[in-house]
């Protein structure tokens, strides 16, 4: 049984349909990528999984049907969605952001340990631990958003455009940490990324979306070898 299974999932904003019959699955300790141009439906796919858009079809997590469930319930089942752009709580301190991430954890000691772990992963955050999230730079906010996701000890992380608006060196650091997180904590991932070169460092396999439909899917090596993918996403 796969950890996450999407079967014929569709979604729309108001009257405009954005996704049509998308199906794929993610195994335990697996990292899947979603590639595609702007407006292809990548973010919507993640939003469908975390319950933030109304969907058709069926989405199963760990064997359980989560289609149509409220986002906070889905999150409590062990899915952490790190949304695109400002996913942080701007008026709260960095520490409080992390504490919010650990909302389900009951044991204070564990939470403290987890905060330490996150600060090791993202040393930049340590110096800013008492500052309001809104005063952080774009890169630091992105790190904080990911760290908050980790604090929930999820079985699956959904990462949306983690490199958007980041300088290349910062983006590389973020992805290096994501890779480390996977090997250390064994978290499964679905990664949406415009920069395919970065995504391919981490993912095992990927789907390519075009205007809301899957146009390609397969293991990383196979996709990287395809001319169409190289031209469209790897810049040469």
């Amino acid at each position: 049984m796969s950890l996450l299974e999407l079967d014929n999932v569709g979604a729309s904003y108001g009257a405009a349909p954005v996704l049509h019959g998308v199906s794929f699955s993610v195994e335990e300790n697996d990292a899947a990528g979603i590639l595609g141009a702007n407006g292809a439906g990548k973010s919507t796919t993640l939003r469908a999984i975390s319950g933030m858009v109304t969907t058709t079809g069926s989405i199963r997590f760990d064997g359980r049907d989560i289609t149509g469930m409220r986002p906070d319930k889905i999150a409590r089942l062990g899915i952490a969605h790190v949304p695109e752009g400002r996913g942080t709580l701007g008026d709260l301190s960095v520490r409080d952001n992390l504490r919010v991430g650990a909302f389900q954890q009951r044991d204070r000691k564990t939470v403290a340990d987890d905060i330490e772990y996150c600060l090791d992963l993202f040393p930049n955050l340590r110096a800013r631990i008492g500052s309001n999230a809104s005063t952080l730079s774009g890169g630091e906010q992105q790190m904080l958003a990911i760290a908050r996701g980790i604090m929930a000890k999820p079985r699956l992380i959904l990462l949306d455009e983690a490199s958007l608006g980041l300088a290349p060196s910062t983006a590389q650091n973020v992805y290096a940490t994501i890779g480390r997180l996977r090997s250390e904590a064994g978290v499964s991932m679905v990664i949406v990324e415009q920069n395919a070169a970065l995504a391919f460092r981490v993912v095992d396999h990927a789907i390519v979306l075009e205007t809301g439909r899957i146009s390609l899917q397969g293991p990383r090596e196979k996709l990287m070898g395809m001319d169409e993918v190289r031209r469209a996403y790897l810049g040469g």
Partner: protein
Amino acid sequence: MAYFIQLIVEGLATGSIYGALALAIVLVNRSTGMINFAQGAMAVLATFVAYALTESGTPLLVAIVVAFVFAFLSGAVVERVIVRKFEGGDPDTAVVVTIGLLTLFTGIAAAFFGYEPHPFPSLFPAESIDILGVFISLRSLGTIIVLLLVMVLLQSLFRVTKMGLAMRAVADNPQSASLSGLPVSRLLMIGWGLAAGLGSIAGVLVAPQLFISPSMLDFALVYALAAAILGGLDSPFGAVIAAWTIGIVENLAGAYVSFIGDDLKIAVPFIMVMIVLAVRPQGLFGRKVVVRV
């Protein structure tokens, strides 16, 4: 001198009533980012519930507890059924929604109890005590103590408890908070419920003085808003300090500045707000928000 101190204590007591309402406004603002112009009207309706109960022979304390519960539930229901749809939308629309609620709640109270004022029993005895030659009414003292208790409880709710943290998170960004598994919808309801409950405390404290009528708290609302804004909207502590200041300054101005007298006292908080905001637009205790382009 004794008269002066007496004025200050009375100012503190009326300030405490504005403070309770201001705390409710701050609480709603924190949990939903809205300003509830109906806060006073909702409190009046809850106070009317207490009034109806005492009229039918229920002990006052029981009536007040029932009114608090009623207020909590009505606040939660209003949030769930009406306000929910407008949260996170256009803030001007949100203002209009709460104005609709203000009209609605005033309307409900008027439809059941009419517009003429009714006497309301006080929780505190009418006597005064003599402290070093200054006569202080037990009513004023009681009001001040109740408010202090409420403030301490609220501040520790936000600062210490996990629920307070969760409520702050939801106030900041409900969507993002829900992705961390926070039960957003329940937290918002609790926020509004608590605020309405606080309002009902202000209502039962003030009703013995003003007599109860549907528009009893209209002016108090303006004072409370002034206090909340002066206090910086995100700081319960600041709101109470500002409410006290307003209460004292208003009382002293009414007594010592003959032009102001009793009828123009209400101009005092307005002018204070104007002056303070001209200097510090973020309020006395609020943080300055850096707008990023």
